[in-house]
């Protein structure tokens, strides 16, 4: 593997009363899209802030592009979208974009030209001379995104990039991120929505309570932790299948979502035998699909039902 763009080595960050990140290690390969996944309060934002050197880790080392420390010297190569979005409300859209690009060391003229191009691309050209305040929330998010990518960074650090976006704008941004990745940019983004991660990521790092639970290429993570999965949908009123799910020689785990159930087969169990057993139980099947685990399933299995609890405890 070529030298990773982002490296975290045993990074720890403590706050008064709790440890936000504990001994976290991570490596993001150049040109890959990596998802930093975890429930709320897992330490995603703290990790990203440490990567951006907005807060300093108490222990451990962060390396970007193989260099230690100050990401601000490298800020022309990094696009950072923080979880807390914000722009100068009283400034004109174009001016904000030019200013933010200038703080990254881009020349004024270049910044102006690129901002105009990006506004055009995002369908905001006619808004460029309006005040930020006059824009809708969705439009402001797009402007914020433009500010993140305007200086043509090699590395994108995106904290919850798609939260609060409608499906159309969400799709536009996903497409843009993938486009930038195709052009060679490395992307590290955080989310707690697994469907998004599944669509975008080459590799994932799942964290909980500030610690790595699992990381690696997406397919490998799913293979290693997913087992054999079958999606089964039965017609309503077929309570009979419940006893099939309880058969431990056949089924390791079953999650009934209502409309369908996701079933993890027991070791060595044959999907064909499951099908026969369900039919014999008298249920009418409307869907039967042998599949790999969804990332969502892997996530819930690994992080567990107590994932949403804050990381404060366990310190005593």
């Amino acid at each position, binding site marked *: 593997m070529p030298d990773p763009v982002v490296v975290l080595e045993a990074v720890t960050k403590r706050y008064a009363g709790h440890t936000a990140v504990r001994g976290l290690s991570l490596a993001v390969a150049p040109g890959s899209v990596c998802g930093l996944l975890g429930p709320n309060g897992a330490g995603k934002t703290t990790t990203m*802030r440490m990567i*951006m050197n*907005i*807060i*300093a880790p108490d222990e451990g080392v962060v390396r970007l592009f193989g260099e230690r420390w100050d*990401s*601000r010297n490298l*800020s022309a190569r*990094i696009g*950072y979208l*923080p*979880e*807390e*979005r*914000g*722009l*100068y*409300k*009283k*400034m004109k859209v174009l001016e904000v974009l030019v*200013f*933010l690009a*200038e*703080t*990254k*060391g881009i020349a004024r003229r270049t910044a102006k030209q690129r901002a105009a191009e990006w506004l055009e691309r995002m369908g905001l050209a006619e808004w460029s001379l309006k005040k930020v305040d006059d824009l809708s929330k969705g439009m402001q998010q797009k402007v*914020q995104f433009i*500010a993140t990518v305007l200086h043509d960074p090699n590395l994108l650090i995106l904290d919850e990039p798609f939260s609060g976006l409608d499906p159309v704008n969400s799709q536009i941004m996903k497409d843009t991120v993938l486009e930038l990745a195709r052009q060679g940019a490395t992307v590290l983004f955080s989310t707690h929505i697994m469907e998004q991660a599944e669509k975008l990521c080459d590799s994932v790092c799942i964290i909980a309570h500030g610690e790595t639970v699992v990381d690696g290429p997406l397919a490998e993570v799913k293979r290693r932790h997913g087992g054999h999965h079958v999606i089964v949908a039965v017609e309503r009123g077929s309570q009979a299948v419940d006893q099939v799910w309880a058969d431990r020689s056949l089924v390791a785990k079953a999650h009934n979502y209502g409309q369908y159930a996701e079933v993890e087969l027991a070791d060595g169990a044959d999907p064909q035998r499951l099908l026969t057993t369900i039919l014999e139980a008298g249920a009418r099947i409307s869907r039967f699909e042998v599949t790999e685990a969804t990332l969502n399933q892997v996530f819930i299995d690994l992080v567990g039902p107590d994932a949403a609890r804050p990381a404060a405890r366990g310190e005593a």
Partner: protein
Amino acid sequence: MQRTWVVIRREFLAKVRNKWFLIATLLGPALMGLAMFLPAYLLTKSTGVRNVTVVDASSDQVGRRIAEALDGAPLITAHYLQTTLAAAGDLADSLAAEVGLKSINGFLLVTDQTVTDGQVEYRGSNVSSQMDMASLQRYVEEAVLTERLERVGVDPRLVADARLRVDLRTINIRGGKTTEQSGQAAFFLAYVMWFVLYIALVVYGQLVAGAVVEEKSSRIIEVLASSLRPFQLLAGKVIGVGAVGLFQLVIWAVMAKILIDQQAFFLDLFGIQIPGGRAFGLPGVPLAMVGVLLLYFVLGFFLYATMFAAVGAMSSSEADVRQAQQPVLMLIVIPALLAFGALNDPDGPIALTLTLVPFSSPIAMPIRWSVSAVPLGELAASVGLLLVTTLGVTWVAARIYRVGILMYGKRPGLRELARWVGTR
């Protein structure tokens, strides 16, 4: 440096383009003009020509001399009316009616006692005007005095000579050298400087706090913090707002100069007449004075602005700032009031202390400098102390700022702040 410059320019333009800057910049000179011309205007109003009748019930027509003296005074016309003591009562009633009709402002009742005991009575509609009464008193007094002296046989020419008024001219001596400055001009200059420094520190200091908390409450701070060092941000804010302050002061200085140079034109414009034609003279400001003023403005501004920036960084909203900035405001207001008081004894121990203590010297020293010769040793000590304190305060403020800009919620207490200063 390049990036700090970007922050400075944004801050400067954002503030200067704000409509409040325009309003304040225009309103400043308007208030200044009002302060200059209003007293002059009111003066003309109150000393507008007064119509006074002198009712003489004396036996030797002493009232005629008084009427002549009053008539000769500027802005007063006096009529003489002879009567007897017996008829004076009825005459007074009919004159009172005249006053009611506003055909005269009032009347003076002169009797024999006026010269012997100094008894004289004025009845009129303008008795509440101190200015009117003072000038009335003066002219009546002069007339009576002349009358008395002549009665004891003093030559009237001697009396006229004796009445020549004394004009006290005050001239400021600095460092053993007589200056061109009059005492009044020196005081005026000191007052203007006190006002400018005080306003600059209070207003622009609060602007810094507002600018910092605005970035926090709009949440743009994290984007900024990812590409700029906290110290670059802090320096950009403080210098940017400071530049706005200087810019506004320069505009005001230019406008003030125009107002003063062209005051005849403006006075004419409002139909105001002033004896001598000038209400104010521009005091000559020596170059060293400008230097001292600028030096202390810059150091004082950094001292307080960095504190205000720290206040902004530890707050989460405008309302938070208003509360948290109270101690810093007190730190300006109290020394400023004391410094103004020290004008009376510019070389005394109080003035010396105020010009050495770093939190009062930014205001006290330029004021003291303007009215007395400050020994160079004291100046050096004062600047040295202020410089060291400013650097120290900036260091502490920068550390508070660095942690505070990413903290939301409850404002920290003193212990929490100390921890912020101590964090790596």
